[in-house]
């Protein structure tokens, strides 16, 4: 997202391309070799590649939240994994426990319609716009009605959970981070870690302490098997849904950042918050918007994650490892860069689910791959694969 406006003489650097081509060639050679031994079939690698795409898309969605926030306020938001957790559990309670009693419906609809107003304001540009106000009122009435009479399908649960989690993200910024604007960056970082712990334990208190089933009625989770080169590829319909939703959300996000007034304000703030403020940009609102967007994406990832794996681990650990890995993905791709986060996420998915298929006996180490790659990237290219040059920021 943070694209420097300073035009620099373009230097064509061939080294990355040579490395990329080399790695791809090595992998292809390994696949061909394994196929020639006869133990493995093409379908096996196809299945592994599909599951890599599934996982990678999920990581990408979470990583976008890290990169958005970092791009604007230079904060590694360690509570982002917990925002992801809130999204998943919010949607679970929406589709599994509706219809709600009226007070609950009003409460939830209140939060969700606040989120809806915020989402509309991204398009209209200000909160006091009539469209936003009308949308909020209509949304509140509609959501209250829907929640109190009917059981929600997972898609509506996902949309509402995204709105609710967006509001949680804004509150996170308002309560924990905004009072620390201008404080040393280390204070913010420590606060983020504290918020992470706080939300983990709040989740244990408010949601559940147990493994939670996540099986809404949908045909998307059905198994999918198709023949390939004389064998069968085993996967589920999620392999279509997850990348599709990711693509859709990333497209919307990119359009928002590049085409709207608020998006332009975000880019300006990313470049230099002080100057942006002098130019009349409401920096606090831009930051709140950033948290809203990141949290909405994280909630979508949480719902897809639950659908894909069929159950949610208990709140204290649910967001921990996915959050850390997505953070690694964001840094690997180049923190602060939107395409970087997507590339980093996909790369991690590929590393975790495809590479173990190539080499036997490495599966048990796959949780370390993300961090191993992180170290390598930090050593040889600290700004990430397509990240900005950090030196110009200092």
């Amino acid at each position, binding site marked *: 997202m943070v694209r420097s406006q300073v035009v620099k003489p373009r230097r064509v650097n061939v080294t990355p391309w040579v490395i990329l081509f080399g790695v791809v060639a090595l992998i292809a050679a390994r696949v061909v070799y394994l196929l020639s031994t006869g133990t493995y079939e093409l379908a096996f690698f196809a299945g592994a590649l599909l*599951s890599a795409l599934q996982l990678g898309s999920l990581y990408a969605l979470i990583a976008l939240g890290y990169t958005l926030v970092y791009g604007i306020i230079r904060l590694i938001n360690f509570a982002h994994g917990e925002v992801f957790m809130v999204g998943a559990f919010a949607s679970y309670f929406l589709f599994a426990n509706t219809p709600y009693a009226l007070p609950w419906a009003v409460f939830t609809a209140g939060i969700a319609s606040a989120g809806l107003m915020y989402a509309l304001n991204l398009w209209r540009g200000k909160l006091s716009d009539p469209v936003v106000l009308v949308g909020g009122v209509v949304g509140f009435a509609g959501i209250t009605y829907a929640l109190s009479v009917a059981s929600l399908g997972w898609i509506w649960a996902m949309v509402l959970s995204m709105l609710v989690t967006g509001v949680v993200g804004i509150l996170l910024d308002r309560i924990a981070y905004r009072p620390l604007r201008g404080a040393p960056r280390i204070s913010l970082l420590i606060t983020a870690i504290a918020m992470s712990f706080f939300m983990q334990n709040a989740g244990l208190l408010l949601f559940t302490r147990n493994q939670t089933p996540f099986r809404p009625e949908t045909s998307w989770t059905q198994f999918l098997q198709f023949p390939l080169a004389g064998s069968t590829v*085993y996967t589920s319909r999620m392999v279509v849904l997850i990348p599709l939703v990711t693509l859709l959300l990333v497209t919307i996000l990119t359009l928002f950042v590049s085409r709207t007034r608020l998006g332009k304000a975000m880019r300006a703030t990313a470049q230099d918050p002080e100057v942006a403020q002098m130019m009349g940009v409401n920096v606090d609102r831009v930051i709140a918007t950033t948290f809203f967007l990141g949290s909405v994406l994280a909630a979508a990832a949480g719902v897809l994650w639950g659908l894909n794996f*069929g159950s949610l*681990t208990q709140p*204290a650990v649910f967001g921990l490892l996915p959050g850390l890995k997505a953070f690694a993905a964001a840094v690997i791709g180049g923190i602060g860069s939107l395409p970087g986060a997507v590339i980093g996420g996909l790369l991690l998915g590929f590393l975790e689910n495809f590479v173990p298929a190539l080499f036997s006996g490495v599966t048990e180490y796959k949780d370390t791959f993300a961090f191993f790659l992180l170290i390598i990237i930090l050593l040889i290219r600290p700004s990430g694969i397509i990240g900005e040059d950090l030196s110009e920021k200092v």
Partner: protein
Amino acid sequence: MKRTVGLALFALGAAFAQEPVVVGVNLELSGRLVSLGTPELEGMEAARAQLGEVLGRPIEFSVCDNASTPEGSVACANRFIDEGVVGVLGTGGSTQAIPAAEVLQEAGVIMITPSSTNPATTQVGDYIFRVAYNDEFQGEIAADYLYNDAEARRVAVFRQQDDDYSFGLAGFFEEAFVALGGEVVVVDYTGGTVDFAAQVNDVRAFNPDAFYTPGFCPELAALLPQLRQQGFADQLIMGGDGSDDAQCPDGGGEVFNGYRFTAFAEPEQLAADPEAAERAEAFRTFFEENQPDGTFNGFTLSGADAYNVLVAAIEAAGSVEPAEVQAALAELTDYPGVTGAITFAGTDGTPANRIMGFFEYQVPAETEAGWAKAQLEGLTRTFGE
């Protein structure tokens, strides 16, 4: 005046005599193994409600939640040492038990674990006891069952590499199954894993005809659906006593239909020892009144017996000095427990006559209907025979 002072002193003395005996309870009451620690605590509470006094003094629990982590468990152990408790009951899992055992052994405090089955736990020292069988036995029985009854020859084992229970049990199973003439491939995962795509791919080339999953439910609930989805639709999947946890069928759903596991016996399965079966049945009746919201399973019975043997040893020693109670425990013979007769004399702290039952989850296809845990008729094994 003098008489009043004398009376006051006497009253004070009586109050001192009534000073409670404090027993530490170190269990998984939150975190990933909460549904293992909770029934054990409920069992202990029910047993204390039955018999809450020893040597004329009331017994009090000092309950410490180890949050299902080894660090938490060690912190609890240190707290108990500071409090000067006579003994510690717990923990539920071996990963939590072994480090706590090391701390308590060093300090000379008794520890009785209801359900840590890794042999290493009681081998830490002479102050550490358990009322469970060990995994050498459990792994061997599982291997025997899969090889002889289920007629599996190629078994894929999913092992949680960062858990002492899972790691140990997988090892004993592999040893026994290979000795029987079968083939085993072991695939590792770490705690908290939800994406098993790579692990499942690892066993595809091996083409197993059964699976053994000696782990815990937070991971198994995610593993099983992926196994079934990835083309292993009909193979028998079997687990250990870590699967005796509602989080498995609740979290995983329909795929747990037909999932089998070995676990601590329930009252009906104690038929090999009719008197124990009677005691267990009586305890169940009492438990259901005393803990109406409690979970009753093999862990509950085990928790109760961990408490019972400690009280019996204090009674026998006639003292709350840990060294004397330890000596009485080490001499304990044929204590009539609700899990069977318990004898510590001449063992490493693992009593014989432990009865293990076989279970199967039955999960109907309709999401509305609940699941059931069925005991497999006639399938029980006794440890130490």
